[in-house]
């Protein structure tokens, strides 16, 4: 069953080339590619649950020389999230881009982005991670520029420069690691790394590069313009998946590879930056005038919560409490992925149907687009962290870990952040439910409204009510 790993990279890559060469049946090709990739992701998740972690050596070359791919519980779960979000956003994109020429430019990049995400989540060595990070960055920048407006191109260019700077720092860290330890395989490094100046500098360089890419406060400055000016399905995927890919790498480095070297001070630093992100991002989301900007600032805040877990996980001794907290981190990340993608798709529907995304002028939206408004509410439940959403479980574990380890500050930050989130979501809903007599307008088609609704429901209902197996899966390490 280990072969399914390579299918997850090969299918979207072949799909990307096919849509480039055959633009006419592209939509059909994307549907086939999407369904096949999602099936592969499901199969992988099933195999990991049954057999444990999987390994695959591309072309039969052993690790060190060849490319080693591996999947454990964490990567299988994230791959499943990527598949579901990309599938829903693909369906939405087929309705979002009205002109054939737009779709011809969009599909190859879209599938390339999917390939890069899958390859990144499966990579077992640091250099391969660098290459996949660059693939991801380049396709994400090209997609973000597709809007074609001056603001979109300027934001995409800034996004590219920031991304390149991040990758260069990551690569500098890699060269130090290779100089010091002679290997880039993450599993081997986890055993041989020793605390010292080389490993410290490498970790600092790689982390700084990744924090830039994952837009942790105060390195978030590039995210709101880039995410707010991209086409709606692209914004959805950038916010839900692309920043999370860099976060996944921080998680791998700090909790797996460099786990023995992380000191409380370093972990607290990440926690403080996360707290800054929660407060700053939530406040700016509340003050935003446009829906897309609100969603983008909300992404800055939601990523902050994930970093609050680092000092807590560092303080908790290995055991049940730590496992619960780690599971809380993952479910919060998954829940945000689905909810934010759903929110951006719903905003896209509103923007296309009303011609604007100005929050002040949303009155009557609930009458005209009830399903989309419901999708925003569902996503909002998960963003605030109300029960029964997956985010509620995640924040519950965050609070429990904060109480257990006596770090009360994070509890306060989470409470303020959640209140601000409630305020910015209800501000949108308050306007959307405002009464205003509107002339009858055609209702949106199912392809536009359903993806957002399903993503919101996944974040709020599925992850909240059926997430117990998640903790069992996460115990499957590589």
């Amino acid at each position: 069953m280990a072969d399914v790993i390579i299918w997850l990279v090969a299918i979207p890559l072949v799909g990307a080339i096919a849509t480039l060469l055959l633009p006419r049946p592209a939509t059909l090709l994307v549907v086939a590619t999407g369904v096949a990739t999602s099936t592969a992701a499901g199969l992988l998740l099933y195999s990991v649950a049954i057999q444990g972690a999987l390994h695959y050596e591309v072309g039969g070359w052993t690790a060190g020389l060849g490319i080693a791919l591996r999947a454990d519980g964490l990567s299988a779960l994230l791959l499943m999230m990527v598949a579901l979000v990309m599938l829903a956003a693909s369906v939405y994109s087929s309705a979002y881009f009205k002109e054939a020429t737009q779709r011809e430019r969009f599909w190859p990049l879209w599938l390339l982005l999917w390939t890069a995400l899958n390859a990144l989540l499966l990579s077992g060595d640091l250099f391969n991670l660098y290459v996949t990070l660059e693939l991801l960055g380049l396709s994400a920048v090209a997609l973000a520029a597709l809007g074609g407006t001056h603001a979109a191109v300027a934001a995409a260019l800034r996004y590219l420069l920031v991304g390149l700077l991040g990758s260069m720092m990551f690569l500098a860290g890699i060269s130090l690691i290779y100089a010091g330890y002679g290997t880039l395989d993450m599993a081997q490094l986890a055993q041989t790394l020793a605390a010292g100046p080389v490993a410290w500098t490498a970790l600092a360089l790689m982390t700084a590069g990744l924090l830039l890419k994952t837009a942790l406060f105060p390195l978030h400055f590039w995210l709101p313009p880039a995410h707010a000016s991209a086409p709606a399905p692209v914004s959805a995927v950038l916010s839900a998946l692309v920043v999370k890919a860099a976060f996944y790498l921080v998680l791998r480095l700090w909790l797996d590879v460099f786990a023995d070297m992380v000191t409380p001070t370093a972990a607290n630093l990440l926690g403080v930056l996360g707290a800054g992100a929660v407060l700053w991002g939530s406040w700016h989301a509340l003050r935003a005038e446009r829906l897309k900007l609100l969603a983008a600032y909300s992404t800055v805040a939601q990523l902050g919560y994930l970093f609050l877990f680092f000092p807590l996980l560092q303080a908790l001794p290995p055991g049940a409490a730590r496992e619960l907290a780690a599971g809380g981190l993952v479910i919060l990340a998954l829940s945000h992925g689905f909810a934010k993608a759903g929110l951006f798709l719903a905003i896209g529907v509103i923007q296309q149907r009303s011609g604007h995304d100005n929050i002040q002028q949303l009155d009557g939206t609930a009458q005209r687009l009830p399903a989309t408004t419901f999708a925003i509410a569902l996503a909002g439940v998960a963003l605030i962290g109300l029960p029964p959403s997956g985010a509620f479980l995640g924040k519950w574990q965050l609070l429990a870990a904060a109480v257990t380890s006596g770090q009360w500050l994070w509890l306060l930050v989470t409470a303020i952040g959640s209140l601000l989130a409630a305020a910015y979501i209800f501000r949108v809903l308050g306007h959307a439910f405002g009464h205003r007599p509107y002339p009858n307008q055609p209702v949106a088609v199912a392809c536009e409204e359903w993806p957002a609704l399903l993503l919101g429901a996944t974040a709020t209902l599925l992850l909240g009510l059926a997430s117990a197996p998640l903790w069992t899966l996460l115990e499957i390490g590589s």
Partner: protein
Amino acid sequence: MLTAHVMYGLSGCLLVALGLRTTLLHASLLRRVLAINVMGAGVFMMLIAVAYRGLGVPPDPVPHALVLTGIVVAVSATALALALARRLHAEHDNG
């Protein structure tokens, strides 16, 4: 003792620092693209220095492979950055 490969490595570090400084401090777009490339060259020099295994011994091929891949990535990324920058300039000239 300051041998050749140590000098290579240190110059690489210097180039990384110079590139990083300009990327962060200068607003000019072209300068920043160039600075990121200087930084890349520094990282590549560090990797080449890492490959040295002593006189008469063939160098470690893995860092060389990394540098080759890195150059391909850097060239593609620079091309994309320049294409986007041209697009911005064209719009400035027209509007």
